[in-house]
């Protein structure tokens, strides 16, 4: 029988007015296993804690029960006191006789009886307590950032500035992400490149940042503080170390093709760099389009290159890196136009999406900022913008709001009106969602100063009639059908997770929601952490959001990484699952239940009679386990248990309470 001490707190009158604390401590003195019981005015006060410490030392107590307020208040206080007295903190349990007895009951007799029963049940729990020790986990102070858009760059720069090495992996040949494609930004109309390029340049030259563009993460193993990742570096067919970025090759290359960066609005060469401010400013050969790769002839780039850096025989490389934390900033894509047949996207050249409009409005874009329609290069006299194209649409399986479209559509209409003063800009909208600093004012500016026509309603169809686009919709405020002839139709298509996000999630063992956005650990309190410890989220990878919000979240994620790296070891909570290998049958029913993927099979050697036998059992990664205990219920053989809330502890508590 363990020597257990019981301390009953008066909490001034808070407890003692409804619970007879003296009676409680008196009765507990005679309870089996209780060696010492007393009551005290304020146990959380310094003298109160001293009393606890002294009593533990003097009586060589092996466990204590503090009957006081909620464990959410002072569990850590009393555990720290016990630890100072040499008692393992996990042998301290709190009975909540304030929030659960004195404050919620008025009958003193009932409240006292309940309090005594509660204390007794906690004594039973403490009898089954064990010493638990936090594990020290070593840590590699290096972060992997996936995605080189504005969020990934923000994370990389913040962490690098704090002095820790960063590996920035980007699947495109250059960093900058979607923001690099934008013309102007709302609500200030400052040029996107002007505010972005200082950042890309800084990322490019920062001594703590290793840039891996044209690369993808293909494997991740390990756990928080200690991941090992494999990065696939796709071939560029140009030796970037030798290349000086003169771009003669691009100039002379005879093969033109559609540019992905321009979203089909412009052309590029088979050897090219996406845009003039690209970082790194190095060309890449597209294997699909290059004449040499198709026919084995051409090699003009080789002839013109002054430093001899073209390498047709380059192959992909796999690089392995040890890192401590991962930040996923994989960004977004737009809903493929094939899914929006009713608006004729994909069928009519002059039905484009928001990003394509950004390119034709961009000063560095294919039209040098002159808004021309793609089909014939004419300046459109009438543009219809359609908001919520795919967003807030259950039929398309995307009931969520894409959040940025209301604002960028207002911006598009404004940019157009600033160029074509007599042009007509019409916006079909469902609701205007302009929640942000200066956002509502921006939309009002579009309506009042720039005379953009806002029509509340949905568009049923976009079709061609006598060579002009016709937009057929309904104005739900007047209830009338609207028919507008347009030269250009711009769809504010839904923001979707970047292509490949789901696969990346599987690689990193991070969950995604129904739509493929990464799940945060808690929707309110842990918005930048994923369910997998040590993996953080930033930007549109988690949900659609605008630039300011992305930057805030990315800075938050960076702060999380820096906090993690500020320690020399990571400490894990010992109240996690544990396996009794002797009775585990290795069925692994617990494995799919674990939300943290902390359970893996392991082969162990066990003695059966006089011979050794190899057997599969479940094993817990204490770094990943968060101690929810769901696995312990799923276990058929009863081998899985949860330290701190073990089956034995809960059952003893239960039995005692049922008496």
């Amino acid at each position: 029988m363990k020597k257990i001490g019981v301390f009953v707190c008066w909490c001034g009158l808070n407890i003692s007015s409804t619970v007879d604390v003296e009676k409680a401590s008196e009765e507990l003195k005679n309870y089996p296993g209780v060696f010492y019981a007393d009551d005290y005015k304020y146990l959380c006060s310094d003298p109160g804690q001293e009393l606890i410490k002294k009593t533990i030392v003097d009586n060589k107590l092996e466990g204590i029960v503090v009957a006081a307020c909620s464990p959410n208040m002072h569990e850590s206080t009393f555990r720290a006191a016990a630890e100072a007295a040499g008692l393992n903190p996990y042998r301290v349990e709190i009975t909540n006789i304030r929030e659960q007895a004195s404050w919620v009951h008025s009958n003193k007799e009932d409240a006292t009886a309940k309090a005594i029963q509660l204390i007794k049940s906690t004594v039973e729990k403490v009898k089954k307590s064990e010493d638990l020790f936090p594990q020290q986990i070593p840590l590699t102070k290096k972060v992997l950032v996936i995605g080189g858009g504005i969020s990934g760059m923000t994370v990389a720069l913040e962490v690098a500035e704090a002095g820790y090495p960063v590996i920035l992996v980007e699947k495109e040949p250059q960093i900058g992400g979607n923001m690099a494609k934008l013309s102007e930004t709302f609500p200030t109309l400052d040029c996107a490149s002007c505010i972005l390029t200082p950042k890309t340049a800084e990322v490019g030259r920062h001594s703590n940042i290793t840039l891996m563009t044209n690369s993808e993460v293909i494997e991740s193993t390990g756990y928080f503080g200690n991941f090992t990742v494999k990065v696939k570096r796709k071939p560029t067919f140009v030796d970037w170390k030798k290349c000086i970025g003169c771009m003669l090759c691009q100039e002379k290359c005879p093969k033109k093709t559609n540019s992905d960066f321009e979203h089909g609005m412009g052309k590029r060469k088979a050897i090219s760099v996406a845009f003039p401010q690209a970082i790194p400013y190095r060309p890449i050969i597209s294997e699909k389009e290059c004449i040499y790769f198709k026919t084995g002839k051409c090699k003009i780039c080789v002839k013109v290159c002054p430093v001899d850096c073209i390498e047709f025989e380059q192959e992909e490389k796999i690089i392995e890196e040890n890192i401590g934390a991962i930040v996923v900033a994989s960004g977004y894509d737009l809903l493929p136009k094939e899914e929006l047949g009713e608006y004729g996207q994909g069928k009519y050249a002059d039905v484009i999406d928001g990003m394509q409009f950004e390119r034709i409005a961009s000063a560095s874009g294919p039209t040098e900022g002159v808004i021309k329609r793609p089909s014939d290069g004419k300046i459109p006299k009438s543009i219809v913008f359609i908001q919520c194209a795919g967003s807030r649409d259950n039929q398309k399986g995307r009931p969520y709001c894409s959040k940025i479209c209301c604002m960028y559509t207002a911006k598009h209409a404004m940019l157009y009106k600033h160029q074509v003063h007599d042009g007509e800009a019409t916006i079909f909208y469902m609701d205007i969602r302009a929640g942000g600093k200066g956002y509502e004012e921006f939309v009002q500016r579009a309506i009042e100063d720039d005379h953009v026509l806002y029509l509340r309603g949905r568009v049923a169809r976009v079709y061609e009639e006598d060579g002009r686009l016709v937009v057929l919709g309904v104005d739900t405020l007047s209830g009338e059908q609207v028919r507008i002839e347009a030269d250009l139709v711009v769809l504010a298509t839904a923001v979707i997770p970047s292509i490949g996000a789901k696969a990346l999630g599987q690689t990193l063992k991070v969950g995604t929601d129904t739509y493929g956005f990464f799940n945060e650990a808690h929707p309110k309190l842990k918005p930048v952490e994923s369910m997998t410890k040590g993996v953080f989220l930033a930007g549109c990878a988690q949900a659609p959001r605008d630039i300011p919000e992305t930057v805030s979240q990315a800075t938050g994620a960076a702060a999380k990484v820096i906090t993690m790296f500020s320690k020399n070891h990571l400490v894990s909570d010992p109240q996690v699952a544990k396996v009794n290998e002797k009775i585990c049958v290795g069925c692994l029913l617990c494995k799919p239940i674990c939300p943290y993927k902390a359970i893996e099979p392991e082969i162990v050697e066990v003695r059966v009679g006089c011979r050794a036998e190899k057997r599969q059992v479940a094993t817990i990664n204490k770094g990943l386990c968060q101690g929810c205990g769901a696995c312990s219920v799923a276990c058929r053989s009863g081998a899985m248990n949860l330290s701190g809330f073990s089956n034995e502890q809960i059952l003893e508590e239960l039995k005692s309470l049922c008496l």
Partner: protein
Amino acid sequence: MSVEFKPNIICFACNWCSYTGADMAGTSRMKYPATIRIIRVPCSGRVNPTFVMKAYQKGADGVLIAGCHPGDCHYNSGNYFAKRRFLLATRFMTFLGIDEKRLRMEWISAAEGVKFARVMREFSETISKLGPNLRAREEA
């Protein structure tokens, strides 16, 4: 000569939502009957249906499982597991002949002190009407 029946009710409350909701009820000085005893668990998904059966066996008249609202679970999915296990437990109870009204599951958030107190009052009344649970009780 009838003695007033005071039910014995066990409430499993998850640490993050419902236990904190109970704290909120306390801090707001809301009253509910002293028939309820709370067992703190990290997550409603920690509640094994065998705990529930054990409670009836040892003399509990009612058992309540309280967890975070759907989508709010601190561990993401624990409350969904709890719900499934709860449904399983009620079926098992019917099989054993225990009135399934003796087991209740509620989503109570950390902010819902009012709801916590109300549920406790309601459940206590339900159990009082049902009377003592004699069916599954262990023979002395």
